[in-house]
Each structure stands twice: as C-alpha cells, then as structure tokens.
C-alpha cells in the first residue's frame, strides 16, 4: 500500500468512527411540507428541543397533523408561521398529551400560526416570563360542545404576557384564559363561539383592550376564585372593547365552575377589587350586559382562608350600553331569581350589593355611561330591597395605571374620566 492510500484509508476509518460517536446535532431536518405527518411532527419537536436562545423556528405554509403535544422548554425561542390561515397545526384525533402546544420557557414568541382541535388546551404557557402571542388562531372546528378542549390561549402562572391580534373559537370553557398571572396585555383579539370569551382569573395588573367578544356565552370575565395557589388578583382594566351579543348556549356540564356563567352575559366582574371598565361597547347580551358580584352569589362554601369573595372598587365609566337582558338564561336558578326580583328586560348593570363586613372604602362607581340601566338586587336579603337607583354609585375612583411590558413598545392609553380624583 502506498503511503498516500494509507493516509486515505486512515481517513476513511476515522470517518467511520466519526459517524459512530460524534452525533450530528438534532433538529437540523428541514420543516418541509413534503414530510409525512409523523416525520414533520418529529422534525418540529426535535427543533423545539434543540432550540437555543435566539432560535427562530419557521413553519411553512400548510396543514400539519399531530397526534401528541408539542412542547418547548428552551428560553428565547420564536415560532413563526406564514399566517393564521396558512400554517395550521391540526390535532384532531390527538392521542397523547393534553395541550396542543405546551410552553414552559421565558422570552417566548409565537406568531402567525393556527392550532386546531387540540384534545385539551390549544396553546398553554406555564410559569413563563415575557410571552408574546401574536396573530395566533386557536379553533375547535366542531360546533361548540362540552367535548371541545377547555381553553384556547392559556397563559398560566406567567408574567409579562402580550396576547394580540389573535382569534379563538369553540373553546368549551374559555377562549382566552389568563390564569394566575401578572402583568399582561390582551388587545385586538377576537373571541367568538366559546363558552367564555376572555377570562382574567386570579391575575394582577392586566389590560384588556380593543378586543371583540361576540357570540360566546359570556364576553369578558374578570374574577378571582378560591383554592388556587395564586390569590389576590386585582388591578385590571377593560377598555375599548366590543362586547356584543354573547348569547351562545353555555354547554358546560353542571359540574364545571363555568357552568355557573349565565349565557348572555357581557362583562362579569366578580370577587375582585380595583377594576376599571371604560369606553367599551357592551350591547345585546341577553342575561345582562354586565354584572358586578361577589363569589357568594355562586353559593359555594368557601374553605380557602386566603380567599376574599367580595367585590370592591370597581369603576365603570364612559361605556355604551344597550339592549340588555331581553332573555335571561333560564338554565340557572340564580338568574331566574334575580330576573324575577328586578324584572325584565334585565338592566345593563346588575350588582349584588354585597359589601365586605367592616370595609369602609369599598366602592362601586358608575359614571357617564349614557342611558345605562342599573339594579342592585340585594343578594344579602334575598332580593328584598331591590334598588334601581344608581345615584349611590355616582362616584369616581383613581384611574389605574397602564400596563407596560418589556417586549412591547406601544403605549396604551390611560383613562381620562375621573382619573386621579
């Protein structure tokens, strides 16, 4: 053998070893629409696992079928499709994992993607900081029914969350569900055909603006619930939203908490303090355009000692109301009882009149809401002293501070009416 060929064969040998020991980095397979569903699923999940801070995962145009949850745990990753109508991640028949996409990572951005027919939640972020969800569509393609997945876009125990220009349809519980999170903005989104359109549950410092909620059972719900680790949700602003015609039947089974949401409710403020609702159009919701209630109205025994079931310091101003309460949800006894007490059509704003014992500065303030109708249905005394007089509530509260997010350059507005008084 000539020396040259010796070197050559040594090289060949060397490359044989190389094939064996130094693994090629995974996640390098191109995400092409020519891959089979199983191959595409594997390639995308590999990319999500191999992703490092700064990685951008580009999804091609097309419809891609998955049978298990896609998950991300690497920080600083962006997932980008070609548009909510063009890049569709389809989960019909999903056999493993509950969510469509499950994210537990900071500095996460997802945009221009659709997630359809997830077995459970559509897109869930958990314990994540700096989350941006932009132009994401989550949809259950079957008509709204209890077997659809519960939550569409679902950031939980997350911080600095921006959800914008997104769309959710068909969620069996809530379309947009911000849970146990703080510092968040939901804007310019659309929720239709869900049980609840938007939910802000046990959250602190949230702005909900320029959204549209229509044809859900309930439009925008801001509330606290007991028995969840994060308590003390407050400081939520709901403004410039269109909350119109949320009269879809509530399909939730009786056992679910959301069963207690009356179909035909526009805006719900429950068991929370420091909420500002302004400049919204809230119309044609058949149980009532809005209610402001304590959790005691849920007639659930409260065993969580850290939980405050009362509602206080809610400031409702400069909204347009109309067409409220023409057909209250007869499914719920509580609604029927209130309807009986206050008469029909139900007024725009229903208040249960429950004040925390000993609370001296608890206020419900209504200002400049046009031809608004109102009733305090005196829940504490079995509706004995129903009052339609809103004069007691002609007060103002300081404007809440606009939320700023590190990932967002846009300045959101601060309310002018009554601000700082």
């Amino acid at each position, binding site marked *: 053998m000539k020396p040259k060929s010796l070197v050559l064969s040594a090289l060949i040998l060397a490359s044989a*070893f190389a094939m064996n020991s130094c693994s090629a980095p995974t996640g390098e397979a191109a995400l092409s629409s020519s891959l089979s569903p199983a191959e595409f699923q594997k390639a995308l999940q590999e990319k999500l696992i191999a992703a490092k801070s700064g990685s951008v995962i580009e999804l091609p145009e097309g419809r891609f079928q998955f049978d298990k949850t896609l998950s991300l745990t690497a920080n600083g990753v962006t997932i980008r499709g070609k548009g909510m109508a063009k890049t569709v991640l389809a989960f019909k028949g999903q056999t493993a994992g509950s969510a469509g996409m499950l994210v537990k990572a900071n500095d996460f951005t997802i945009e221009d993607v659709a997630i359809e027919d997830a077995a459970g939640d559509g897109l869930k972020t958990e314990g994540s900081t700096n989350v941006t969800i932009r132009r994401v569509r989550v949809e259950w393609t079957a008509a709204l029914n209890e077997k659809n997945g519960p939550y569409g876009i679902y950031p939980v125990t997350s911080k600095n969350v921006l959800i914008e220009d997104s769309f959710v349809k068909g969620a069996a519980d809530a379309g947009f569900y911000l849970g146990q999170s703080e510092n968040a903005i939901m804007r310019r989104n659309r929720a239709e055909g869900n049980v609840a359109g938007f939910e802000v549950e046990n959250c602190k410092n949230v702005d909900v603006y320029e959204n549209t909620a229509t044809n859900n059972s309930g439009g925008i719900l801001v509330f606290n619930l007991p*028995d969840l680790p994060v308590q003390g949700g407050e400081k939520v602003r709901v403004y410039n939203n269109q909350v119109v015609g949320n009269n879809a039947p509530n399909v939730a089974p009786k056992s679910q908490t959301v069963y207690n949401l009356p179909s035909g409710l526009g805006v719900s403020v429950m068991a929370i303090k420091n909420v500002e609702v302004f400049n919204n159009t809230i119309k044609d919701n058949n149980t009532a355009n809005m209610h402001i209630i304590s959790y005691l109205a849920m007639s659930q025994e409260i065993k969580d000692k850290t939980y405050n079931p009362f509602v206080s310091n809610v400031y409702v101003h400069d909204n347009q109301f109309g067409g409220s309460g023409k057909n209250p949800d007869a499914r719920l006894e509580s609604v029927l009882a209130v309807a009986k007490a206050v008469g029909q059509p139900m007024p725009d704003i229903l208040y249960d009149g429950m004040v925390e014992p000993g609370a001296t500065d608890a206020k419900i303030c209504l200002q400049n809401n046009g031809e608004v109708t109102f009733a305090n249905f005196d829940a504490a005394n079995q509706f004995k002293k129903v009052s339609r007089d809103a004069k007691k509530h002609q007060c103002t509260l300081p404007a809440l501070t606009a939320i700023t997010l590190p990932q967002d350059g846009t300045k959101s507005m601060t309310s002018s009416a009554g601000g700082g008084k």
Partner: protein
Amino acid sequence: MKSVTKFFNRRVAENAEEAQRDCQRLCATSASLCASAVKRQLRLQSLSKRVAILVLSLFALTLTGSCGMFSTDVVSFIEEPFPKQLSEWKLFVSGSKPLTPNKGVVPYDLNTPLFSDYADKYRFVWMPAGTSAKYSEDGVFEFPVGTVLAKTFAFPATEAGGKERIVETRLLVHGKTGWVALPYVWNAEQTDARLELVASPTEVTRKADDGSVQKINYIIPNSNECKQCHDNNKVTLPIGPKARNLNKDFPYADGAANQLAYWAKLGYLKGAPTADSAPKVPAWDKAESGSLEARARAYLDNNCAHCHQPGGSAEASGVNFSFTHSDLRKLGACKMPNSAGYSGGHQYDLVPGNPAESILLFRMESTKAKEMMPEIGRSMSHKEGVALVREWLATLKGSCGEVKLAAK
C-alpha cells in the same frame, strides 16, 4: 500526539489504570476539539481551511471513538455532545446479556414506583469515584456532578421461550449545569440503544393476567416530556431516589441488604441515618407493608406528586399529592378544580367516601388524552392502582360539608 503514543505504550505495558486516566483526559480534549472544530468549520469559507479542519476534527473524533472502545470503566459525560449510543457510557458490561452492570453501577429499586404501562423497570445508579450523594429526609438526595441514573423499561416475553423485550433506557445525568434527561431507544437486536430525543412510539406486547396478549402503543417520552415530570421550578430533578422510596432491601449479588445502608457502605451516600430511623413508604401492592391509606398515599406520591406539588408542573391546580403532608384538603377533598377543564361531570377533585364522584379517580381511569392523569407516560389505565385508590377513597369519612382526615 505525545500523549497518544504514551497512551498506547501504557496499554502495551498493561498499565491499564493509568492509561485509562490518560484516555479520559484525551477524550475530554478531543471532544472539545471536535466541538470547536465543527463550530469553526461553519464560519470558515476557504476550502483548504475547511479540509484542514475536517481532517483535524475527524482525527479528534477517532480518538473519542477509540477511547470509548478501550475504556473499561463507566464514562460519564457531563456536557454536550452526549454519546449517541448507550454503550459509550459503559454502564453495562458488553458481550454478556444486556444490563449486566459494570463496576460501580449499582442496581436499585423503589418501594412504590411510577406506573408505566406495566413495563418492568431496571434502575441503576453510578457516581464518579470518590463522590457521594448527600442524604435528604424528604426530597431527592443531592447527587454529585457526574452521577448517572439509568432506568430501563422492558416487557417480559409473551410466549414460553421468548425473550424479554428491552424498549428504552432513560438516563438522568447530573451534568455540569444541572440534570439532563437522555432517552435511549434499544435496537431490535437488543445489543445497544441509541439516543433519540424524539423517539417514535413502539408497539409492544404484554400478557395480561387473564393470559390474553395485549398490544400496547408504547410511547417513549421525548426529552422535553422527561422534563415535564422531572421539573420543579424549572429545575430538572430525579423523582424516585428519595429516602422513603429507597428504604428497602435489595437482593444484591453479594447478598440482600437495605439500599440506604448499602449505598452508605459503598460511599455513595453520606449523612444517612440507620434504615430504621429513615422515612419509608410502603409498597403500594403489598398489604403487609402498610395501611391501605399509607399505600394509597405512597401510590399518589410517586405517580402524581412530581407534578402536583409546590413548584411542580401542575402546581397551579392547587392540589398536592406529596406523602409529606396529611391534609386531605390539599389532596383535593371537596375542592373544585376551577381551572382544569373537563372533569367528567364531577364537581370535586376528591369526595371522601365517594370514589365514583372524585375527579381524581376519573382521571386515573381515563385513557383519553384530554382527561387522563398523568398526562403523559401511560397509554393504559393501571387497574390495580386505580383499585387501590378507589378502596382508600371509599373508606374516607365525611362528606363535602365536613372533612376530616382519617388517622394516619
């Protein structure tokens, strides 16, 4: 080059141990050489430079490969790139039947394990020479960097004379910057397993108690899914090797012994009390090992609490299935789930005395992606585990008006 020659000379001189150390140093050097060469390769555009780098990196790779070949002790990799083949770790002695542990690789067992579609599990621990884990009474031990925990999933033969089918070996490696989960999938020849961060499901067969053969679409978790369970406040951690779960006898090759004592004797564990004074959970399926309640709680501890505890993936649910408390309320008694989605028409997580109305049992029994618990890691319902929890729930006194935990 000098060190290479030295290394081979030493081999000839049969000074194996020293050669080994040299080799491991060499491996480390060549691995980093490989990594940096590959990185540089991406940047360099000149062809000649590329070729030069290629030759250099191939050489480095050859060394890495041959080092693995000649090494006889366990090789611990504590940072990327991790070996593609399980055999490169040298956890098991090659040539003999699979899973024969190498020197220092110690098998262990748990009092009450996680259910994984009835798979048999073989667990091993290895720590670098001279290091040991620090005992902890409640949580997972503090293992030294370099520790390898290897858990192999296998299914027994379904016919007489057939062979056991080894499906996967999951390594949890305490790397330089924390624990890393590495799933290795065994080949059909059962000679080695290959690192697959996203493995495809595998069909396995299992003989049920009634003698029928079941087909199982066995899902091997991807490395993110490993983290989903092995996560506490975004830190990957082992789950099983806690004092209470290790506190039992194991039939070692050199005679049966308590695992805590055996680890201590080996130098693998420091600060452990005697087995008698260490906590212990019963074996869920052995009635003589503990009360019904203790066995059910042990089952929930190792099948649910990795997520359902403070800091766990399902902390937001507000239930905590850890064995370390005795508050039935924290186990979900008369608690509405509030943010859990579909609950099968049941109102409360746990209804004392009423298993059929408890979401806990509904989720354990279900095999639907949307409803089942745990969310991942099984495709079948664990009949016996469900029966145990059902029996315990039925004994609980009270209703959802007043709740009291039966004495433990």
